[in-house]
C-alpha cells in the first residue's frame, strides 16, 4: 500500500493514554492524589482549609527553585548552590531594606546578586570547563558565607520603611484567598513550561542535554545557553528567597540549608533525568508537591519527624525505579 505524505506526518508516536501511562509525572500525580484521599479519611486535620493552605504554600519555595533547577538538569548539569543563593538573596534584600532603602531597591539588589552568582557559576562551567558539581558545591559554601558577612551573622527582622509591603508580598493572599507564593509559583510554572515547549531557547536546552556535541556541531550556542540556565537557576532561588523573606518576616543565615537536596529530589521525582535531556515544569511542581504531602502526612499521622528523610529518600528511589522498569521493558 502506498503511503501518502500526510499519513506519516499525522502519525503520532503513541496514543495519548499510552504516553500518559509511560510518563513518570503521571504516576507521581496519582501518588499525590491517592495520598491526599487517604489522608482526608485517615485524619481529621488534613482536609481542612488551614492545612491545605499551609501545604500549598509550603510547596511553593521548593517548587519555584525546582522550576529553575529543571532548566539546569535538562542540560545535564546540576546546581548545588541554590539553598545558599536563596539565603544570600534573602539577606541582601533584608540588609538593603533594613538600611532604609525601598522594597524596589531591595528586590533589585537581591535579584542582581542572584544573577551575578548564576553568571559566575555558568561562566566557570561553560567557558572554563569546570564540572558543574564542583563549581556549585564551591558556591554553596561561598554564598552562605557571604550571607553571614553581609549580616554579620545576625537575624534581620526589621525591613525599614517598606516593612509592611514586603510582608504582604510574601504572606498575603491577594486573589481568592490563595496564598501569594502559590500564585507566584503558578505564574512561574506557566512561564517555564512555555519556554521549554515553545521557544528556540527551550529546544536548545533539550538538545544540549541530549547530545551536547551534536548541539555544538549544528550551531547551537551551547556556552551562552549554559550560562543562561545557571543564571535562571540562581534567579529562581533569588525569587524564592524574596518571597520566603516576606512570608517569614525574618532572615537568618541558616535559611535554605539543605534545600538544594529537596529541590533536586522534587525535580527527579517529577520525572527529570539527571543524565539530561528530560524534564518538565509540571513535573517539578508535582515532585515538590509529593515531598510536601509526605512531610505533612507524617506529622498528621503522628509519625516521628525523624522518619521524614526515609520516606522522601524512598520516594526518590521509587520514582527512579519506575523509570528503570520502563527502560527494561523497552529494551526487551
Amino acid at each position, binding site marked *: 500500500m502506498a503511503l501518502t505524505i500526510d499519513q506519516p506526518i499525522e502519525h503520532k508516536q503513541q496514543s495519548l493514554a499510552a504516553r500518559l501511562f509511560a510518563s513518570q509525572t503521571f504516576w507521581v500525580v496519582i501518588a499525590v492524589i491517592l495520598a491526599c484521599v487517604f489522608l482526608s479519611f485517615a485524619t481529621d486535620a488534613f482536609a481542612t482549609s488551614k492545612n491545605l493552605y499551609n501545604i500549598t504554600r509550603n510547596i511553593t519555595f521548593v517548587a519555584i527553585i525546582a522550576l529553575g533547577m529543571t532548566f539546569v538538569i535538562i542540560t545535564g548539569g546540576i546546581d548545588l548552590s541554590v539553598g545558599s543563593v536563596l539565603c544570600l538573596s534573602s539577606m541582601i534584600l533584608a540588609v538593603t531594606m533594613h538600611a532604609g532603602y525601598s522594597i524596589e531597591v531591595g528586590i533589585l539588589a537581591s535579584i542582581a546578586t542572584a544573577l551575578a552568582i548564576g553568571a559566575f557559576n555558568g561562566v566557570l562551567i561553560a567557558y572554563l570547563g569546570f564540572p558543574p558539581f564542583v563549581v556549585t558545591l564551591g558556591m554553596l559554601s561561598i554564598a552562605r558565607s557571604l550571607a553571614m558577612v553581609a549580616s554579620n551573622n545576625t537575624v534581620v527582622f526589621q525591613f525599614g520603611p517598606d516593612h509592611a509591603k514586603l510582608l504582604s508580598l510574601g504572606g498575603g493572599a491577594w486573589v481568592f484567598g490563595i496564598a501569594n507564593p502559590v500564585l507566584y509559583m503558578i505564574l512561574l510554572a506557566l512561564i517555564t513550561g512555555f519556554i521549554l515547549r515553545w521557544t528556540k531557547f527551550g*529546544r536548545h536546552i533539550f538538545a544540549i*542535554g541530549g547530545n551536547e556535541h551534536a548541539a555544538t556541531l*549544528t550551531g547551537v550556542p551551547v556556552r551562552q545557553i549554559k550560562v543562561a540556565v545557571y543564571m535562571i537557576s540562581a534567579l529562581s532561588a533569588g525569587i524564592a528567597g524574596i518571597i520566603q523573606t516576606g512570608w517569614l518576616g525574618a532572615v537568618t543565615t541558616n535559611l535554605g540549608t539543605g534545600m538544594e537536596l529537596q529541590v533536586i529530589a522534587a525535580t527527579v521525582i517529577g520525572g527529570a533525568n539527571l543524565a539530561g535531556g528530560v524534564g518538565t515544569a509540571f513535573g517539578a511542581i508535582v515532585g515538590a508537591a509529593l515531598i510536601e504531602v509526605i512531610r505533612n502526612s507524617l506529622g498528621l499521622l503522628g509519625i516521628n519527624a525523624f522518619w521524614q528523610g526515609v520516606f522522601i529518600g524512598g520516594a526518590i528511589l521509587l520514582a527512579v525505579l519506575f523509570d528503570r522498569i520502563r527502560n527494561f521493558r523497552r529494551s526487551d
Partner: protein
Amino acid sequence: MAVLELTNISRHFGAIQAVNDVSLSIEPGQVVGLMGDNGAGKSTLVKMIAGNFRPSHGTMHMDGKELILHKPAEARQHGIEIVHQDLALCNNLTAAANVYLGRELRRGVGPFRILDYASMYKRAGQLFAELKSETRPRDLVKQMSGGQRQAVAIARTMLSQAKIVLMDEPTAAISVRQVAEVLNLIRHLRDQGIAVVLISHRMPDVFTVADRVIVMRRGRKVADKTIASSSPEEVTGLITGAIEQV
C-alpha cells in the same frame, strides 16, 4: 562549471604536512568517493572545505568565486553541508527537531516568536518523502534504526539549498541492509543536482555509488579517476602504496 574547485591546497600542523598541494574539482550532481588510509589527510581536507580549518596555502573557489571560510557556519551559508560520522543527532528529540536543530522555524512578530511545530513537521515529512525514507517526523530518534538516523542527518543537509554534501563514513557502523538504504539516500541527493563527497573505507560502497574516486596517501592526491576506469584492486594498491601514483 565546477561547484567546488580546490587549487594547490596545503595544510600543515607545525612540522606535520597533513595535506600537501592537493587540487581537485567537483561537478554538480557528482558523487565523489574520497578514499585513503587513516592519516592520509582525508579528514583534514574535508575539514577545510567545511570551514573547521583554514588552508595554509592554496585557494578554494565555489561557482567560480573565491571561497574563504572562518567557521563552519559560513560554509553552511555557502551551501556546504556536512553529515558527521556520528551523525550529530539528539536522541531525546524528534526527527523533525533534529532536522531543524540550530535553525528552528518560528512564527510570530518581533521578540514574541514561538516554534512553528506544524511547519517543521510538514517540511521534515516532505524531505523524508523525497528521500524515500520511512522516517516519520514525530518519531524520537532514539527509537530509530541506523538507516533512519542517516535519513534524518541527510534531510538536515537538504533544508537549505545545499550545493555540496560532505559525508564522513556514513556506512561505517550500520547493518548491511541499512547500507543499501544509505546508498539510496546518496543517489537521491545526486539526482537533485547536489554534489556528494563520500569519505569511506568501504570499497564496495564507493564502487556502487560514486562516479569518481579520489585517493589520498600521506597528504597527497595519488589518484583521481572515474569509477569506470578504475578497479577495487587498483584503489587498494593506491591506498597502501603498492601502486605509487596514476
